[in-house]
């Protein structure tokens, strides 16, 4: 079993500051350790130098998109679990999100219980694999 603190850490990527902060609070209220990134580029730098087990990311951001994030995640080993959240309701966004193969997908706003369950499940999977 690898470092417990590391495997319990969830990375958050959202370019909307208030959404990012609210998710940080939400995960913290469930006792989870969170590392939040307002800029996707910063997350990619972090991921290149630190192990990431679970990342929760929006897919519709300025600059780097969620798709690019997943593409980079695929190159990492072990491969991080990705949970996608998006506020876009159109089918194209949904299709794009599905194409990148997330372990869970949420439309904003989402049900907190279901979201937290998905995050815990992803962490559990990462632990089992790790």
């Amino acid at each position, binding site marked *: 079993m690898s470092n417990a603190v590391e495997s319990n850490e969830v990375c958050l990527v959202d370019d*909307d500051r*208030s*959404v990012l*902060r*609210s*998710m940080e*609070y*939400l995960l*913290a*209220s*469930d006792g989870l350790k969170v590392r939040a990134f307002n800029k996707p580029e910063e997350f990619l730098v972090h991921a290149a130098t630190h192990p990431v087990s679970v990342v929760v990311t929006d897919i*519709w951001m300025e600059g780097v998109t969620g798709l690019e994030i997943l593409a980079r995640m695929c190159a990492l080993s072990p491969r991080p679990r990705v949970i996608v*959240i998006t*506020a*876009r*309701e*159109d089918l194209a966004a949904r299709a794009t999100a599905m194409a990148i193969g997330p372990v869970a997908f949420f*439309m*904003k*706003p*989402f049900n*907190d219980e279901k979201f937290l369950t998905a995050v815990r499940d992803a962490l559990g999977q990462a632990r089992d694999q790790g």
Partner: protein
Amino acid sequence: MKSPAKTEESFYAGQTRILEMVASDAPLPEILKSSVLLMEKQAEGLVCSILVLSADGIHVQHGAAPSLPEAYVKAVNGAPIGPRNGSCGTAMFLRKPIVVTDVLTDPLWTDYRDLAKICGLRACWSTPILSAQNEVLGSFAMYRQERRGPNAEELSLTQVATHITGIAIGRQRIQQTLHEREARINLAAESADLAFWVIYPSRNAAWMNDKGRAIYGFDANLPLNGNLILSRVHPDERAAVRENFDRACASHGTFESEHRLVLPYGKTRWVIVRGRCLVDEHGNLVELIGVTIDVSAQKQSELQLKNQREQLAHLNRVALMGEMTASIAHELNQPLTAIANNAAAARRFLERGNIDPVLLQQLLQDMIADSQRAGEVIRGIRAMVRKDKSPRSILNLNAIIADTLRLVGSDVVLRESVITTEMDHSLPQVEAVPVQIQQVLINLIMNALDAVEKLPPSERRIVVRTRTDEDGLAEVSVRDFGYGLPKNRPEKVFDHFFSTKQAGMGMGLTIVRSIIETHGGTISAENAPDRGARFFFRLPAARKDQQSQAA
């Protein structure tokens, strides 16, 4: 001994009887036999026979010879015609009467001489039976046991006999041809899955092949007529089909129609019907003949195609019109998400009982800020419109309307609606962002199409009109003939999230108003005096110097 007058009378009566047999379609052998017996009765010792030319045109067939020995009849049946083939075969071949006074010496009888001798026949005079078109149908022959030629009475009997039997055989030939033709058409119709039908308007009757009865749902033995067939047409289309049909009857022309049939038990079929009128030589309508093709299967795939096209058109519209609504939805969902998350976090912290008042304060503060942000998004639609950096240009609204109608053309056709325009050609030009004005027009036209959707196709009308109002503003109105706006407050349709549509977000008209107001114009909605809704917007005319530049 009969008196000559009496004989005369019964001969005429006999002819009449035979013609009645012809008219009532009695079997041909019976008619021919009666003819022969009638002729034989007219002269002492006269024996007659009728041969029919077979369909191949080169052989004879037994017609009637009730007084000739059976052996003789059998021998002649199936004999070829030719230049030396007895009296009858030669008469048919040469198409002229052949008088053989002595069969025992005449060279034409070489092949039949012995047979004639056994049967006691000596003289044989044969005359070809011709149709009205002068085709050889057969021959009428008189036999005598003595060697002589025909007398005047026998010649006139021959004339009557060939005339009557010509009618009888000719009629039978025509009917045979008709039957064969009908059988062929029927065969073709059945194999092509066609309904084949004939309507006789004067007799109020109709005929249909089995396939037709199956398509229209008629029992095999039900007597048919035109009205009964028409009663199967879908009520929505019946009047139009009848009009089409009546027009064809009146003009003795053709008709073609694609419509639905409603069968007993409510089953619906799509059919294509093609027909034409048949007129007699006096120009009277005799019958209407036609075919009906069941195209339900094709129609089904056509409808699927139409559905797909509709979806495609919808996607195109979303791409054009929905961009803005989608981004508004996105903008709104962000603060709502933050509020929901913060509230959920606060509840969880409280449940765990280790809530830090500073943290709670922070969460509540964030929720207030995000609520305000959500409000700003709504208020900011106008700002979003303004944020659109697209350059304004000097526009002719009539031209923009024409472009927009082309864009929505497929929607209009698919939704079986009609848009007419009433353009003011001296409409002042305006200064505006073309794409935004187009968005306004598309939105109003789509709303109008939705408004007339529930009406029958013939009433799905929309009128787009331009005019210069009293203050010199350019006014565009989109008027539908639907059920109108809520009676109490038509203007309410411009409010945020107000929608009378099931799938509506209630954002379209909000954006429309923002665009128009950003352009310094106004937009209103009202119910038209008779029916339907009318949306109209006014835009100020561009400055005169700009207008001349553009022109």
